[in-house]
């Protein structure tokens, strides 16, 4: 057992602490505690004078534990840890005690009690410090290459950005060529450009020296973790393996085929996707057209709004009007979703084009009859009949059937409608909780071209943060499984939100220290106490509890 030598530095923080608490009495008290070799107060421990004193005393007294009692570790722990390291002390042998934010500042009128509290808190810190162990940061090599699953508009752009940053990138696409859903479209809103125009970039992708495209192929198995993924790919009947540092999911989504809805028959009642094809062939001859929005969406099965259908309907309605200005077009809608500047402008433009908009409510949905669409009009409180020779149903984008398979393969979550679930809706929208895997485009949520490209670059940005490093360095304080004690109940595997725990080939349960974020939940959940949460061990926490200053 090593000889524990603790140095305690107590900060006045000017009068912030010193003006309330009795620092002299605290310092004298601390000197009486076991293992304390050195204890002193400073006016500002965080000043250069204070920091160099820490460095000097570590050397002078051979201190192997350092405690600073001052402000909050949330702002200053890293500074003091670095100082310890500069003096040759392992930074994990530092402990901080908060006697300002949580003591002198909140007990200004009870200085004696505040002083007692400070003594207790420092004693608790000491009891933990005695049990602290040096830890090393962990390094893992990063393979500076990317795998992009899906070669639609988002996959293509993610690949281009990463390749242009110099990273070797592989796209695997299940179809025989790149392009995804865009191949099925006629023109794109909001500037009516040919969809094929946006696919011209495929040439650049295929000829890029850093991009490798594998078509007609799907992933069948993914092993490894950030920096070192190994993906097994099946192309026809051939199996191959590819090693990459990160993976981006850009598998997209597909439009719902409205089988059994509103008399869908593919002839007089068609989907917007069918209409795209007809427009491509310049084969729309109908005079009276009714479009119905939210078909199969915003209902109990698919409660979501698919985001792109309102704009698609507006686009196609305007295109038809361009070809045949006398066409009668009615759009039956629930809410028109045209957020922002450009899209709202587009909506206004459509309204100016003598396109009729009729709001319907889901309680009284339109009825497609032989030659008329019957819809309840709330305004006049009567049912109106709109004659048609073509009904166009706007259906939502839905997740691919095989997305669940991919989710299981990568151990990443999906939401209710099987779109992939990101790490944090707001602040990590294209990351997963598991490091090294990213998502963009409609695999994440229905997205149009503009949004898919934006997300593709975002995913590439998040990925390049890892790819640009020679190695990944992670905190040394992580969980660790003692395989001698472990009973392989796998509770920890399920409970870890970061998929950091897994079974190895020998059947042992192990923590991947690269993925572990040290929350400690697995430790508290292990039925047999086989997991150690380093830097917050059971012994350390219990020792703090037992020294908090009660006894009987």
């Amino acid at each position, binding site marked *: 057992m090593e000889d524990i030598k603790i140095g305690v530095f107590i900060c006045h923080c000017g009068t912030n602490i010193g003006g309330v608490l009795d620092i002299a009495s605290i310092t004298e008290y601390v000197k009486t505690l076991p293992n304390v070799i050195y204890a002193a107060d400073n006016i500002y421990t965080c000043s250069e004078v204070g920091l160099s004193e820490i460095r000097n005393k570590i050397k002078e007294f051979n201190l192997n534990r350092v405690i600073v009692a001052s402000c*909050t*570790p*949330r702002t200053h722990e890293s500074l003091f840890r670095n100082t310890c390291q500069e003096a040759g002390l392992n930074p994990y042998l530092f402990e901080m005690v*908060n006697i*300002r*934010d*949580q*003591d002198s*500042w*909140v*007990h*200004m*009128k*009870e200085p004696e*009690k*505040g002083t*007692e*509290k400070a003594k*207790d*808190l420092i004693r*608790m810190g000491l009891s933990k410090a005695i049990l602290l162990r040096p830890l090393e940061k962990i390094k893992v090599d990063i393979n500076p290459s990317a795998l992009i699953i899906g070669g639609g508009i988002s996959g293509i752009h993610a690949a281009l950005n990463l390749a242009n940053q110099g990273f070797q990138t592989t796209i695997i696409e299940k179809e025989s060529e790149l392009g995804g859903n865009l191949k099925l479209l006629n023109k794109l809103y909001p500037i009516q450009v040919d969809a094929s125009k946006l696919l011209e970039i495929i040439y650049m992708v295929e000829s890029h020296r850093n991009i490798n495209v594998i078509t007609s192929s799907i992933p069948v198995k993914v092993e490894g973790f950030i920096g070192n993924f190994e993906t097994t790919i099946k192309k026809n009947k051939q199996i191959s393996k590819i090693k990459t540092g990160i993976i981006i999911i850009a598998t997209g989504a597909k439009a719902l085929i409205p089988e059994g809805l509103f008399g869908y028959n593919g002839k007089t009642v068609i989907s917007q996707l069918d209409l795209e094809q007809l427009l491509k062939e310049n084969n729309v001859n109908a005079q009276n057209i009714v479009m119905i929005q939210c078909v199969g969406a915003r209902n109990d099965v698919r409660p979501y709004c698919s985001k792109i259908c309102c704009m698609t309907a507006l686009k196609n309605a305007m295109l038809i009007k361009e070809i045949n200005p006398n066409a009668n077009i009615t759009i039956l809608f629930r809410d028109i979703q045209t957020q922002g500047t450009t899209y709202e402008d587009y909506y206004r433009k459509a309204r100016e084009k003598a396109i009729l908009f009729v709001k319907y409510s889901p309680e009284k949905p339109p009825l497609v009859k032989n030659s008329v669409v019957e819809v309840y009009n709330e305004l006049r409180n009567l049912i109106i009949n709109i004659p048609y020779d073509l009904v166009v149903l706007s259906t939502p984008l839905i997740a691919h059937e095989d997305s669940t398979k991919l989710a299981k393969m990568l151990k990443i979550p999906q939401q209710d409608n099987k779109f992939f679930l990101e*790490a944090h809706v707001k602040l990590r929208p294209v990351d997963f*909780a598991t490091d090294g895997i990213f998502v963009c485009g409609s695999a994440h949520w229905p997205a149009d071209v503009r949004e898919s490209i934006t997300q593709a670059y975002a995913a590439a940005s998040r990925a390049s943060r890892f790819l640009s490093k020679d190695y990944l360095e992670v905190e040394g304080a992580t969980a660790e499984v003692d395989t001698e004690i472990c*009973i392989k*109940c796998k*509770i*920890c595997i*399920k*409970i870890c*939100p*970061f998929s950091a725990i897994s079974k190895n080939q020998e059947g042992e349960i192990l923590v991947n220290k690269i993925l572990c*974020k*040290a*929350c*400690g*939940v697995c*430790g*508290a*959940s*292990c*039925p*047999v*106490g086989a997991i150690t*949460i380093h830097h*917050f061990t*059971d012994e350390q*926490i*219990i020792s*703090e*509890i*037992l020294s*908090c*200053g*009660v*006894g*009987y």
Partner: protein
Amino acid sequence: MDYEPKILGFLCNWCSYAGADLAGVSRIQYAPNLRVIRVMCSGRIDPIFILEGFLKGIDGIMVLGCHLGDCHYINGNYEAEIKIGVLNKLLKLIGFSERLILDWVSASEGNRFAQVVNEFTEKIRDLGPSPIKDKKYKINITDELNVIKSALSDIRLRVFIGRKRSIITEGNVYGEVISEEEFDKILDQAIYDEYIRNKILLKIKNKSKSVPEISKEIRVEPNRVLEHIICLKSRGLVDFDKIIDIYPKFISIKEE
């Protein structure tokens, strides 16, 4: 009674500890009885920690985490809720549950932090000092807390607790998803059974006793006691000692 309660608080780093710091920055004054232990996540708190605190004589313990849905580690606070919930049920059996709270304080709730601390401190002040500090109750309370501690150290309850969230969300090994109510019904029974079983073990730790004797001591019907004894025997925790009169006597098997 005039006493200063000793309160221990486990604060998660990201929300409640930050909320406590904010109370400081805003100079919001609150009761000086709290001693804080910082952990990264409220889900780190093993119920054993809390029992250690109560055994030591701490008057009240607070576990504060991020609001549900805000956890920095996605769902650690849900795990905390489950664990503290089970502990709470056990503490209720011995009338100790008032001395523990689990609550949520965000990083922007400096005021609320102070308020939660003040209210809890006052409640503990009203409850009086922990009975464990009273000579009259010390042995009894220590025994009871140790019974709970051994129940919660035991693999059976811990497996139950650890699997709860995955079973009610993803289903069990047969793919059956069990509703939380159903699960809790089973869990409640297990909690009670394990409490009684550990209590029996404690009673026959040093001296062998018959079923009627145990039944009288722990006030549980003899046939139930017998069932528990059989269960404990099958786990290899209890052995038959001797027969006195017509009653067999049992003793717990000491661990190596």
